């Protein structure tokens, strides 16, 4: 049966900004849906507030709304566009929740919009805890014993029945927000209170703890004829108790017999039928008691999920694309298997390799956050690796993480910890309590002589996994022994075995105690002919020929399937794009966006595009995006192996963020033909001394600065420059370990915490420019000429990381003269650096003086935002420049003043890290961003705020508490708020200042002054907006508690004066006129 003819226009909901638990996997699924449905002739209306997505590129949909994903806004879009159907199952929990709200508000009914993919009743059944349990009981499936509670009293009653330890799961949240395991009553009270708060319907489930059981997940797809298939089974390395997003996971399931697996399969199918997901993908999670095989259903997501993205990449079966097709009436047996092209999509993929997914956390960014892994997801990204065996895949995953690991253990035979901690007693607590480094402790436990039984008893990790890993530990001894005899002892046979176990050249080099580099090992290995082959991910374990070069490396056998030898295109046509690896704070979807654009541009030019990346969430690792996909870690070794294999004409390192840039010199020195800006130019921009010299020559000012290889040097530099100073290590992204220091004590404290600096990696000390305006510029150049892509004025003042700052394009307060000066100096710099491709420069403006803060000759985080704001695909254009075209040929137009304002606002993960301070600084903490677009700055800013989840109030109380320096400046702002009808509440000094200025203000007590105090007001949600600028020198505990409570109670909290000013401007605009919605295509139509 062909597609439904009664549907013409479909509204697709995106997932909004990247947050923990909801990342670029939904861009991947959304892009697949848009492409698949447009190819079928549907008119696609899309909403997503996230500008860094491929899906919000204007060519992906007929009408693209970059607007906040709230029910009110979507209702407006529905009214304006009148779609026939809404597809909510591809945009994560955000889309599902929004669609349910639209349904509940009666909007869908009013405008006769059909919900396709999943119906409201099914969503309700799957998401409502009680409904779900009843449904499972009906089909004879066991769930963990549990009780629902809607209040603390009910929760306590539930606990009486369930007992401790208990799992607390809030209803209708994503990524398990607010959930956790309580081992004592105090924890129970805390977690329940938080859960009730975060749940959309104030619901928590108190559940028996099945921590320690084996955990599994099945990806299920169903069509309207009730054909059901299982795409992939996934087994968690970390047992129950750790959120699946924080677990190391393995596909396919490894320790289930066929009998057990088939019962799980039956259960998953019964589940999707009973819940009634008519068409599309779902995932069902199970727990199995390892002692007796008892199986329990944990939960089901009636939508495409992070796991389905993983399953798609792990098997080659594009779940989201198929789900979209099924939603419009196709059946599985009508759709083709894209990889084999000869068989149908109605089958179950079988895989002849092993896939390991490893999460990547960002605890280093939140030192005060609890780093224990629980049922609430905390990781910000993940890496996937494919090998023929578990060990090969696991080691690839570990080195692909870019967390300083070269595999399972960095130095063969040596523990990862201090030698004195390498004993069972010291290791055991690290095995029992899961943290980001548990895998390292598993290895150290083995080195310390602990048996698999002991390790299993403490960690509950399945003995099968431990047995595999023990093979690696045993082989380490063989490596140590061989290397002890010198390089010639590494025979071809021994090296092959070592490589089959997944060991990297770096690990082998490390066994020579630093005397040998990975390059030497590599040369030796190549001489012996020990090189990897590339095999295909083909959905069918080679039963049918694959026509899609989706490849992974392995040292298994000698048969290579890359298929490059007999291919028509000459090798010089091939261009490699290096991806960005796992998402982390500071390097995420924006860079993937650029990589995808590069691949598309090169394909349009007729090149054969080759993607290398290890991140399963992304569009770049869709086998459809490039001509060849190598799913590989981004290390020198793995990239050079691909270069050797396919002899590319060019390798692009500019788009994947810092990851490929860090590889650039090594790749170039070993013969990889890099294209674009030269490595020397990259170094000239990164190396402080070279850079200072260059800009001096160019007549560009820089804040006074210095470099230090020791503590004494650092103090001398700081005192020469004068406090406050900005200190940071060199060669980092996302402002890692960057801080503003106000005095010598502060500098000492900083150096205590960050000892890792040296002659090679010096500490950078810059004058901190107080109260300056920061400006970001993206430019594009062909080596001779330069075009300014966009100038963005930050809303927060300098000192807050550019990734954490809101910004406006065009600038909203800069004079034309300053703007022109910045543009001109950017051009000068780009020319001097002979930039070919993209460059990002950060400037600070203090008064009328312009200082350069830093320059990065690569694609920046803001490229997608700027591209959308100016209607030109900068990354695509840059890719063409790198392959030799000129700016004129590419046709880029400089548009410094678009006729509308685009505002970018960051989104933070503070709600996942209970108790951490929300104050912003030079170290980046945001995970994602949203864009607000409007003809006026105020409205654009308000849209961005709403899109970022800060519900701006229309009335009620505003709490104000500012530092002394801001007291004078805050008065006119508060006056405006007051004029808008808001009641003003303030403490001590701020209240006095406002009163003196004649503003009616209600004074509340500080926390130590007695009760009710300001915190009570926040907790009771009596205030609707908080303006709290902290004193820079030391964090006052009151401020900190207020900000933290604001996060927990979802009250917008503004921490800088400039943001307060912008927000009030936004509220004024918003209160005067309701928000209107306009598609991007219409905005771009205004650009001529």
């Amino acid at each position, binding site marked *: 049966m062909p597609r439904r003819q009664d549907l013409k226009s479909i509204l697709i909901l995106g997932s909004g900004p990247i947050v923990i638990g909801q990342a670029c996997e939904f861009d991947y699924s959304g892009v697949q849906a848009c492409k698949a449905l447009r190819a079928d002739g549907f008119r696609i209306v899309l909403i997503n507030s996230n500008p860094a997505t491929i899906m919000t590129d204007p060519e992906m949909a007929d009408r693209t709304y970059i607007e906040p994903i709230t029910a009110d806004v979507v209702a407006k879009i529905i009214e304006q566009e009148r779609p026939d159907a809404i597809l909510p199952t591809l945009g994560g929990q955000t889309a599902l929740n929004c669609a349910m709200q639209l349904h509940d508000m009666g909007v869908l009914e009013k405008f006769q919009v059909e919900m396709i993919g999943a119906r409201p009743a099914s969503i309700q059944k799957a998401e409502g805890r009680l409904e779900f349990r009843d449904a499972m009981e009906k089909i004879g499936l066991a769930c963990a014993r549990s009780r629902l509670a809607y209040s603390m009293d009910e929760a306590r009653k539930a606990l009486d029945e369930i007992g401790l330890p208990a799992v607390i799961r809030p209803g209708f949240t994503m990524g398990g927000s607010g959930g956790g395991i309580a081992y004592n009553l105090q924890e129970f009270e805390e977690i329940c209170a938080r859960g009730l708060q975060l749940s959309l319907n104030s619901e928590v489930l108190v559940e028996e703890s099945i921590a320690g059981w084996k955990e599994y997940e099945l990806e299920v797809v169903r069509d309207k004829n009730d054909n059901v298939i299982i795409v992939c089974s996934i087994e968690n390395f970390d047992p129950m108790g750790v959120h699946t997003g924080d677990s190391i996971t393995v596909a396919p399931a490894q320790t*289930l017999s066929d009998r057990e697996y088939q019962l799980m399969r039956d259960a998953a199918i019964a589940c999707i039928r009973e819940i009634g997901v008519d068409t599309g993908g779902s995932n069902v999670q199970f727990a199995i008691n390892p002692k007796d095989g008892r199986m329990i259903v944990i939960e089901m997501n009636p939508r495409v999920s992070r796991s389905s993205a993983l399953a798609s990449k792990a098997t080659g079966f594009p779940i989201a694309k198929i789900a979209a097709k099924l939603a419009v009436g196709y059946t599985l047996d009508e759709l083709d298997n894209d990889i084999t092209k000869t068989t149908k999509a109605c089958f179950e993929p079988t895989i002849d390799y092993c896939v390991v997914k490893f999460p990547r956390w960002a605890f280093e960014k939140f030192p005060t956050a609890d780093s224990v892994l629980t049922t609430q997801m905390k990781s910000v990204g993940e890496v996937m690796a494919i090998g023929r065996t578990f060990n090969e895949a696991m080691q690839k995953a570990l080195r692909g993480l870019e967390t300083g690991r070269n595999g399972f253990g960095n130095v063969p035979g040596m523990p990862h910890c201090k030698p004195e901690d390498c004993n069972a007693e010291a290791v055991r607590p690290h095995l029992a309590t899961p943290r980001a480094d548990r895998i390292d402790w598993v290895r150290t436990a083995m080195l310390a002589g602990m048996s698999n039984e002991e390790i299993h008893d403490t960690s509950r990790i399945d003995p099968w996994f431990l047995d595999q890993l023990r093979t690696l530990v045993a082989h380490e001894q063989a490596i140590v022994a061989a290397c002890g005899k010198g390089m010639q002892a590494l025979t071809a046979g021994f090296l092959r075995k070592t490589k089959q176990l997944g060991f990297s050249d770096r690990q082998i080099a490390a066994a020579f105690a630093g005397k040998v580099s990975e390059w030497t090992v590599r040369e030796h290995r190549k001489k012996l002919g020990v090189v990897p082959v590339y095999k295909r991910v083909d959905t069918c374990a080679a039963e049918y020929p694959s026509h899609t070069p989706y490849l992974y490396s392995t040292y298994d056998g000698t048969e290579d399937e890359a298929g490059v030898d007999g291919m028509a295109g000459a090798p010089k046509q091939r261009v490699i794009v290096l991806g960005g690896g796992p998402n982390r704070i500071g390097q995420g979807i924006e860079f993937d966006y650029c990589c995808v654009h590069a691949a598309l541009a090169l394909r349009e030019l007729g090149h054969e595009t080759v993607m290398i990346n290890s991140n399963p969430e992304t569009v770049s690792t869709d086998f459809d995006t490039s001509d060849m996909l190598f799913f590989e870690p981004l290390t020198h070794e793995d990239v050079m192996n691909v270069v050797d294999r396919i002899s590319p004409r060019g390798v692009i390192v500019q788009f994947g963020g810092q990851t490929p840039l860090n590889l650039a010199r090594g790749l170039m020195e070993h013969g990889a033909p890099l294209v674009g800006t030269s490595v020397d130019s990259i170094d000239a921009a990164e190396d402080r001394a070279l850079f200072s010299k260059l800009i001096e020559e160019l007549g560009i000012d820089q804040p006074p600065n210095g470099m230090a290889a020791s503590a004494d040097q650092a103090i001398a530099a700081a005192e020469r420059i004068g406090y406050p100073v900005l200190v940071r290590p060199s060669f980092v992204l996302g402002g890692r370990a960057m801080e503003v220091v106000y005095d010598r004590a502060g500098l000492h404290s900083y150096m205590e915490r960050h000892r890792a600096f040296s002659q090679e990696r010096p500490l950078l000390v810059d004058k901190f420019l107080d109260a300056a305006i920061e400006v970001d510029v993206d430019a594009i150049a062909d080596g001779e000429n330069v075009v300014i892509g966009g100038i963005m004025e930050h809303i927060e003042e300098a000192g807050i990381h550019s990734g954490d700052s809101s910004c406006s394009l065009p600038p909203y307060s800069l004079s034309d003269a300053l703007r022109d000066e910045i543009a001109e100096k950017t051009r000068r710099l780009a020319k001097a650096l002979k930039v070919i491709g993209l460059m990002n420069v950060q400037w600070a403006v203090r008064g009328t003086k312009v200082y350069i803060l830093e320059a990065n000759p690569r694609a920046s985080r803001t490229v997608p935002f700027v591209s959308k704001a100016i209607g030109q695909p900068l990354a695509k254009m840059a890719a063409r420049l790198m392959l030799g075209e000129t700016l004129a040929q590419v046709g880029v137009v400089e548009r410094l003043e678009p006729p509308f304002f685009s505002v970018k606002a960051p989104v933070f993960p503070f709600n996942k890290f209970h108790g951490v301070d929300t104050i912003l600084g030079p170290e980046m903490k945001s995970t994602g961003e949203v864009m607000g677009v409007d003809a006026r700055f105020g409205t654009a800013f308000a849209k961005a705020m709403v899109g970022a989840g800060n519900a701006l109030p229309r009335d009620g109380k505003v709490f104000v508490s500012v530092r002394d320096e801001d007291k004078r400046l805050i008065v006119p702002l508060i006056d405006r708020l007051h004029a808008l009808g808001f009641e003003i509440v303030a403490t001590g000094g701020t209240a006095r200042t406002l009163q003196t200025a004649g503003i009616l203000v209600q004074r509340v007590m500080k926390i130590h002054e007695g009760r009710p105090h300001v915190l009570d007001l926040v907790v009771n949600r009596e205030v609707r907006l908080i303006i709290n600028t902290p004193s820079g020198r030391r964090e006052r505990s009151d401020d900190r508690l207020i900000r933290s409570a604001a996060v927990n109670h979802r009250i917008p909290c503004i921490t800088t004066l400039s943001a307060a000013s912008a927000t009030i401007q936004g509220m004024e605009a918003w209160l005067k006129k309701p928000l209107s919605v306009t598609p991007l295509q219409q905005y771009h139509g205004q650009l001529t």
Partner: protein
Amino acid sequence: MLEDGTVLVGRGFGAAADSVGELVFNTSMTGYQEILTDPSYRGQTVLLTQPHIGNYGVTQEDEESPKLWLSGLVVREACEHASNFRSAMELSDYLAQHGVPGIDGVDTRMLTRAVRDRGEQRILITRDTTISDAQLVDKVRKAPKVADVDHVLKVTTQQPYEWKKGYESPFSPPAPVKAGGKRRTIVAYDFGAKRNILRSLAACGLDVIVVPATTPAAAVLERKPDGVFLSNGPGDPAICRYAIDAAKVLVKKLPVFGICLGHQILGHVFGGKTYKMKFGHHGGNQPVIDLTTGKVEITSQNHSYAVDPQSLPDGAVMTHKNLNDNTCEGLRHKELPVFSVQYHPEAAPGPHDALYLFKRFVELLDGVTV
């Protein structure tokens, strides 16, 4: 050592013996023990495409027959320490106990592609490292082909017996038919029957009498059964004349249900032909479309021969076909209460999607037309 001269060196496990078999690959990701004990693999060496094999050990409960019938086992990595509470023995010991050699550490994907592209061929597993490649090739080529031997006669029961066990394992699906209907007796021809077929029949409330493959029709009729079942089994159906002859008589008198080899035999009975496929279907993910309902079931399959639908006369109707290659997956007779499927509704290993066919057989016995 393959027939075409390819030599691979790996690590031996299981029995320390040499063997020759026709190499087939199976793409199931679970269920190696069921595969090892499936009599249909007699004469064949099985390659499993899932790289890690042996992970959950072996247990008596999962045996599909009392012994291992295949010639040898080829895997990427054989697990030494199983992890599953049901496991009673390690895979390697199990193979050794039954005298079957295994080899691991070889590139199973390359071998799979060789079979896919060049068809099934004989493979020798040997521990003799002194022998020359030429001698090895000679040895392989001299070994009998599957088609040369009537393997059914080697695997069938010598004596009739009653099968009473239903789904006794706690890890079984619910019975396809609720017990409590009228008790009926069927005769099951054992061409190499998998136990889960017999368990499935018994679980449906049937009294099952298992008889040797060569039992003449008259001997079956003497037992006055309500129906006849034709089992799966190894080898070429065309050489099982005795079975085809017996079935020719029985289909006219009683409801008959055939699975796999039983299905191919019915193909011959209806007047059709069978042919050897290039590399057959061996796995648990084969999509089969029911041509009557349009619904697709994911099936467990293990066959190298197939019924040629072009050869079928008017009396036979193709009821199911393979969605991937359009081969014949199911038959029924236009008038007679006779039907069969090429795939394995009893699963073991594989999905349970087709268990309903046992119900269909019971309904046939009850007089409800298919």
